[in-house]
């Protein structure tokens, strides 16, 4: 059964799942998940290791097929599909290119606006390492570089899987700031993490995922007052 989006956050539906199920052999990765992300939304998925977060995010991104259920894109009649950027466990960067070269490639591929690259580099405090090869960067810096790559594409929806892992507190705060200000400018977010405390600063709504099932939804808009249209 296809469910309609439930507009708990004002805004147009962007991407959603209805009864989404994904199995790896006998293992349930996600089971009958219903989830909508709206334009201007900021959704957090909280769950432990193996709860199905990564699978859920890749399904929403459209880079993993479902075994049952539907992935729906709002306004499917529109010619332009919503642009989605995915920051998974891997950064999506070319190790033998410098960060600046990587971002140039993404900016050209996504036709993002002029000057946005430098702005992202500044927001994430990456100017000093921008001309180094990505393969020479530390794990935490690569993580920030991955977020820069995702933001530079100027997506409609930014999906980030445990974006703060391997990142020290100061830079995690810079990443959260960059995501917040990007969300404040109208971008949508879908972020997964192990605990709510790390996601609350960037998310408006929180869902808990356990054993591949969305077991509870906590609307944190009341707490943050950041539910944007």
């Amino acid at each position, binding site marked *: 059964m296809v469910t309609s989006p439930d507009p708990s956050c004002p805004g147009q539906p962007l991407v959603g799942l209805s009864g989404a199920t994904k199995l790896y052999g006998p293992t349930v990765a996600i089971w009958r998940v219903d989830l909508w992300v709206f334009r201007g939304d900021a959704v957090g998925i909280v769950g432990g290791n193996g709860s199905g977060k990564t699978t859920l995010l890749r399904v929403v991104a459209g880079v993993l097929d479902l075994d049952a259920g539907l992935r729906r894109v709002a306004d499917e009649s529109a010619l332009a599909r919503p642009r989605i950027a995915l920051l998974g466990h891997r950064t999506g960067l070319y190790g033998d290119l410098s960060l600046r070269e990587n971002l140039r490639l993404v900016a050209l*591929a996504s036709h993002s606006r002029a000057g946005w690259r430098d702005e992202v580099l500044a927001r994430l405090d990456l100017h000093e390492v921008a001309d180094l090869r990505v393969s020479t960067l530390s794990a935490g810096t690569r993580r920030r570089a991955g977020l820069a790559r995702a933001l530079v594409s100027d997506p409609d929806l930014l999906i980030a899987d445990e974006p703060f892992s391997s990142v020290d507190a100061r830079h995690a705060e810079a990443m959260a700031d960059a995501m917040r200000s990007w969300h404040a400018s109208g971008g949508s977010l879908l972020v997964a993490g192990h605990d709510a405390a790390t996601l609350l600063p960037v998310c408006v709504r929180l869902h808990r995922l356990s054993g591949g099932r969305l077991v509870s939804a906590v609307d944190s808009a009341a707490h943050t007052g950041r539910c944007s249209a």
Partner: protein
Amino acid sequence: MSIFREALELARKDIVTEIRARDALPSAIALGATALLVVALAIGPDVERLRSLAPALVGVVLAFATITLADRLDAVDRADDAFVALWLVLEDPRAILIGRVISLTASLFVLELGLWVSASLLLDVELTAATVVLVPVALLSSLSAASVAALVMTLVGTTPQRTVLAPTLLLPLLVPTLLSGVQAASAVLAGSGPLVLWAGVSGAEALLFVGVGLLTYREAAKPA
């Protein structure tokens, strides 16, 4: 025309990566030169025989190098999920295929020119003004091989059996490329023969595989 601009940028990325990593191309050139040397030593001072074998040797080395280079480029794209990142942001992901054909053609062309220089040293092939036609012939056979390889690598994707599947699928499909390239190069070196016909076969094969690739790429390469 934006797809071609994006494809050129993606090809540039492949070439820069290959130059910096110095991985597949130098080893392919070294392997090719070694193969020519071994054949030259095995045959001895029979110059006519050496010259007549040169096009076939260059063709065989090119075929095997195609597998190595295509596999390497594919591995670089998939190493850190960069392929998925590009797929999601590109308006038309077929730019990835066109970019791959361009970069692979460039690498194979450089390799083939290197092999002809090696052949002139080791197999006594005379590279004169008349044999300058070998350059466009090499370009066409490189384009043809690159088109086949780009499509096959797309179809093989990330299947666990790709190490076996890629050469198994690729080598038979490279036979027309091998045949037309060898025949065209032989015609150039002999100064006679149906050069245009065989060059046309190479071009037709390139067109066919690029066409099939463009028609099927969105579904075949989708990272799902």
